[in-house]
């Protein structure tokens, strides 16, 4: 008798919204949470543990080595050079932002075939990274390794009477890195252009009108209207560029395989883990990358909280103004 009553009440409870909330939460979150734990948090925990160990390929009998792995990363020039290489990409992304901003502001002005230009400039962003890399292998060189110099770029240069250049030259890592940075800009710039177009178009047309009345030329217009309005986005992009520069992987991995002094931090990590099978050291590298990313993210959050607060204050001001206008009317 008693048991029956309890059962019924459980059943009843099960159909109340409280009960439903509980079982729906459990049911809906089960799979995503299991996946999150197994493929993100457990590996992250392992990563930190392994980073203090010397491990062989099979993880048999790992030895605790303290901070030795971290010391290797920052003292062994073979590893430390990858930080230097990421500077190329950092500088590259500054150039990328400037060019993207220029193209975006042109695309926002009165111009024919806007859609076409926008589409062409954006399309590389959607292309398969391996395809892009092979296309540029051909762009800089020709034929099977050892590569000859009759690539597309040299053919273009010859049309202008310029002597061919050895782009992929082991003796000139600076040039090779610059080439790779160029490929990276080529691939990713379209995205920035679209972002900047969105930002520029969200500027109030009243400002432009006022600007035209004052007889400003396009450069003044950019300097005093467009630039201040999109400054937050530019600074966000530059912060994200740090993240991007340290995590460069695909393009150099496919085009040069990290040879010719073009190895990046992530390429080195992957090589250390899967070619040299030094999982401990590789884990330490992954942890270093994680720390850099956390710092960058904190900086970004900190700066953007300020921005959004300013925005909120301004919109409140506008609202108050509108209210008072209404009141006056």
């Amino acid at each position: 008798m008693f048991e029956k009553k309890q059962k019924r009440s459980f059943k009843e409870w099960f159909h109340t919204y409280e009960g439903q909330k509980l079982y729906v939460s459990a049911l809906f979150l089960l799979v995503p949470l299991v996946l999150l734990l197994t493929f993100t948090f457990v590996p992250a925990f392992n990563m930190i543990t392994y980073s203090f160990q010397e491990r062989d390929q099979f993880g048999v009998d790992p030895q605790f080595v303290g901070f030795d792995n971290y010391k290797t990363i920052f003292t062994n020039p073979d590893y430390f050079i990858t930080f230097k290489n990421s500077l190329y990409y950092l500088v590259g992304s500054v150039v990328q932002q400037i060019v993207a901003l220029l193209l975006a502001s042109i695309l926002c002005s009165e111009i024919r075939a806007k859609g076409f230009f926008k589409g062409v400039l954006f399309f590389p962003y959607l292309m398969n990274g391996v395809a892009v890399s092979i296309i540029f292998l051909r762009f800089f060189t020709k034929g099977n390794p050892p590569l000859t110099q009759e690539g597309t770029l040299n053919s273009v240069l010859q049309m202008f009477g310029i002597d061919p250049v050895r782009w992929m030259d082991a003796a000139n890592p600076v040039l090779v890195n610059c080439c790779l940075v160029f490929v990276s800009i080529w691939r990713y710039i379209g995205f920035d252009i679209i972002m900047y177009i969105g930002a520029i178009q969200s500027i109030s047309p009243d400002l432009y009108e006022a600007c035209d009345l004052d007889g400003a030329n396009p450069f003044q217009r950019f300097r005093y209207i467009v630039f201040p309005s999109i400054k937050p986005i530019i600074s966000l992009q530059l912060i994200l560029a740090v993240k991007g520069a340290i995590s460069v992987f695909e393009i150099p991995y496919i085009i040069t395989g990290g040879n010719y002094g073009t190895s990046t931090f992530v390429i080195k990590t992957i090589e250390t883990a899967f070619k040299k099978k030094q999982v401990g050291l590789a884990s330490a590298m992954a942890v270093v990358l994680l720390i850099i990313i956390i710092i960058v993210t904190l900086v970004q959050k900190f700066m953007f909280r300020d921005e959004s607060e300013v925005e909120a204050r301004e919109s409140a001001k506008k609202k108050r103004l509108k209210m008072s206008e209404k009141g006056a009317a």
Partner: protein
Amino acid sequence: MAAAGRSIKEQAKSGRLVVTVLKYLTLVVGCLVVFIPIVVILLGAFKDGKEFANTGVFELPKSWSFGNFKTAFFEGKVLLGLRNTGIILLVSCAGTILTGTMTAFVIQRFDGYFTRAVKGLFLLATLLPNISMQVTVFRIVSKLGLYNTMWAPIILYVGTDIISIYIFMQFLSQISVSLDESAIMDGASYPRIYFSIILPNLTPAIATVLIIKFVSIYNDFYTPQLYMQNEKLLVVSTVLYKYISSTTIKWEVVFAGIILCIIPTLVIFLSLQKYIYSGLVSGSVKE
């Protein structure tokens, strides 16, 4: 006075003309930089082996034959790559939409300590750098027996995709709770609310996620390269990579393969252009 006024006007006019010319010039140069590397690939794809070796990169092919494309498609395994990529895309998209909307629904609609904690976990996970995490993910994937199966990339694409959950959450916060409440008044259960109110209303967000997913999975190289070494499991990216990592490279066939692999992207881009611009940008801003 009048003359001076006119000359200022004329100056302004010619100044504007110069600016306009400069604008178009910049755009045309930009487009050439995009086009030239690709056009060379396209021309090369139509040449036969001898012709390819002996002609300049900008020389037109003698005949527009599709022989290389045929070779790349069948012998060069582009067909296989497209098929495998298609399967992986389909399953992972379905998985992401289901788990992503469900997670977003619970986190966004049932406010409480538990759901807030879960939200925090997901946000924390966005910090972890994907590629270098593979150092330890690899061990787990192979321990689970997923190595060299399509499940490895599928599970990673579904299980570590936090951006999608974020987009769904953002979108859900704009769907009024009063919709849910009126359904509750009518006696609908929460699962019912999810399936007949939330899911249909999330359609635009789902479209955004599908676009982002397509671009990232179709172009992903590292996950399949690491987890699917089996010849039968080649995907678009790894098929192309295989070409250039072999010792003898038939460039004209490689180029044909590249063109074939770009065509699906081009078709999708041309047909969904507007949604792609807004989708990708909204996806990144919330990152």
